[in-house]
């Protein structure tokens, strides 16, 4: 009975997956002759925090930021925004081009204040989000199809903005965003700020209630006085902004705008993070904390594989299996089958009692 209570808790799935990955790490470490708590060791190398845990938190920042926006989009519109990876690349390019100014493609001095570049990138992200949102909310186009347009166009536009080159901004100020403040990795901080800001927004405004309400029952929400279309639009807008922030962090990390590679396949990671977080991809109730744990779990899987000397190119196979297993468990026919099975067991035992 209490077991059932635990498994039905909304945080069960993400935490369970996380623990699974941690266990895999510990067993591997122990089998390699290292301490089983090797994973949790935090050290200082070259004056920076280091260690696998720090690494995961650092590298997983972009996915976590994307997962925040994606969670809202999935909840409100029962669809996914597949353009986020592409939008990341575009925003990174815009940001770097503004910062590099005429000195492109190789700048060491900032041509504009850092904040202008970052805000420029974020503005482009918001624009992309608004475009997606308008198509989905007001023209009633399926989310995946609507975002397919920017999926194709945004990355290509990013390349165009950079004149098909990799624009380098080799400047320490810019590098901070993806680097370190003191010895602390900045991306973790950025992710924390984004998460805190969105959490605060959800806490202080009625947005969370609105989004879930629209995602569960659009018609009833309208009768109850919510503007369903505007709410869906807002979610996509926010998702675009999140993608922009992730893009800026990603480009700062490599102090350049590499449109071909920044954010590549990140949309899939973000969607996977949402699914891992125990959110139904059919919309409705959402669990932001779950999505974030999901995002870090994905990074943990990648890091673990790397650690086990499995080629990063092979990682997708494991991701695929994880996705399918998780969605298959949630699939209605499978659930119905389980229910039938338990009902049959129950009736069989009841019959047994009656016969006795």
């Amino acid at each position, binding site marked *: 009975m209490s077991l059932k209570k635990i498994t039905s808790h909304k945080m069960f799935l993400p935490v369970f997956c996380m623990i699974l990955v941690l266990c895999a790490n510990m067993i591997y470490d122990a089998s390699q002759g290292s301490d089983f708590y090797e994973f949790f060791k935090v050290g200082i190398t070259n004056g920076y925090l280091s260690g696998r845990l720090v690494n995961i938190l650092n590298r997983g920042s972009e996915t976590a930021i994307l997962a925040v926006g994606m969670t809202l989009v999935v909840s409100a519109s029962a669809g996914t925004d597949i353009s986020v990876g592409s939008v990341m690349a575009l925003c990174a390019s815009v940001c770097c081009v503004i910062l590099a100014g005429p000195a492109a493609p190789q700048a060491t001095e900032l041509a504009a204040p850092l904040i202008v570049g970052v805000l420029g990138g974020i503005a482009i992200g918001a624009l992309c989000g608004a475009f997606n949102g308008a198509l989905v909310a007001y*023209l009633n186009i399926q989310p995946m199809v609507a975002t397919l347009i920017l999926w194709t166009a945004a990355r290509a536009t990013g390349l165009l903005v950079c004149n098909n080159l990799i624009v380098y901004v080799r400047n320490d100020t810019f590098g901070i965003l993806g680097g370190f403040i003191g010895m602390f990795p900045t991306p973790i901080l950025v992710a924390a700020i984004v998460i805190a800001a969105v959490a605060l927004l959800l806490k202080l405004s009625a947005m969370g209630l609105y989004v879930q309400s629209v995602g569960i029952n659009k018609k009833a929400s309208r009768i109850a006085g919510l503007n369903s279309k505007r709410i869906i639009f807002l979610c996509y807008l926010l998702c675009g902004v999140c993608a922009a922030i992730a893009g800026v962090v990603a480009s700062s990390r490599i102090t350049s705008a590499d449109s071909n590679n920044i954010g590549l396949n990140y949309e899939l990671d973000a969607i996977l993070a949402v699914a891992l977080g125990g959110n139904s991809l059919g919309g409705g109730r959402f669990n932001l904390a779950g999505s974030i744990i999901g995002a870090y779990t994905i990074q943990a899987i990648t890091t673990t594989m790397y650690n086990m000397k499995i080629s990063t190119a092979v990682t997708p196979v494991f991701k695929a299996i994880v996705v399918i297993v998780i969605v298959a468990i949630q699939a209605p026919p499978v659930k119905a089958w389980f229910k039938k099975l338990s009902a049959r067991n129950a009736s069989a035992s009841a019959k047994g009692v009656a016969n006795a």
Partner: protein
Amino acid sequence: MSKSANTLKERKQMNSNTVLLLITIALFVVLYAAGCVAYGSKGFTNLQTFLNILRSNAGLICVACGMTCVMLTGGIDISVGSLVAMDCMLLAYGMSNWHLSAPVMCLLVLAIGLVFGLVQGFCVGYLEIQPFIVSMAGMFFARGMTAVISTDQLSITADVNQTFYDWSSFRIYLPFGGVPNRKGVVIMPYFGSGVVIALVVLVVIFLMLRYTKFGRSLYAVGGSAQSAAMMGLNVKKTQLKAYVLCSVLTSIGGICYCMNTMSASVSQATGLEMQAIASSVIGGTLLTGGVGNVIGTLFGVLINGTISAIVQTNGKLASSWPNILTAALLCFFIVLQSIFALLKERKK
């Protein structure tokens, strides 16, 4: 009386779907004509340019035909790009490391396509998981498996497999339209085996969609799954078969693709799925299902190819323009479709 009835008929026939197809064809003609006018001096008017578009997109035609079939049922399959990569890698690795013959490897690739489709189709049809998620997992899986086979850049040369090399370099010359090259030798326009395969696939799928029970049931399921079930069709089985068909066609496309590139790498054919989807949509296939045919899809592919050819011939335009233009076209057609849908709803 009968005459007036006929004209009425004609007018009715011009429904929105036909309009969309006509727009697509007109767009292709205009684009190609624009290319001819602008780059006539650079040989754009040669028949060979057109055949080259076909040659480099033979694989995409096969894949897009499969995609159209899946989209007709209202589904989507984004795993095709990765599957093509896996096929190419398997072909190259099998022929160079296991020294298997080309026909055996091709059959193996087709068999893998079949199994791949069965699994995806089962998940969509019988487990009722969203097609996007299923094929996203398929995409991860195939891309990962490509890396499992090999992470090297492999190329297929005559030394690796003579048969496959011969297939790939096989050329059919047309008896007309020849153009003298720089040395003054007249070279007749030609096309390769990939184009032949693609055109056969196209014709077969066209006939299948039009004249077989299965073909029509794809439309019925996409039009209204509930109605199709009420009329006695097996919706789940139809969906399963659609995904199997798509994966098998993708494998055939993979073979064509491989014959064109004669190489394999992990990052091969990235974004091919979106090209296939874009081609279908531009060709008038509705993502909601039930409407579309492969003729439109062919023109969708050709439009994509023409844009690339124009950008290439120009030589100065950035390589990202084809993607941006494709996206713009996609946007145009999607918005057009949704406007048609809104109008239809309003009429009711």
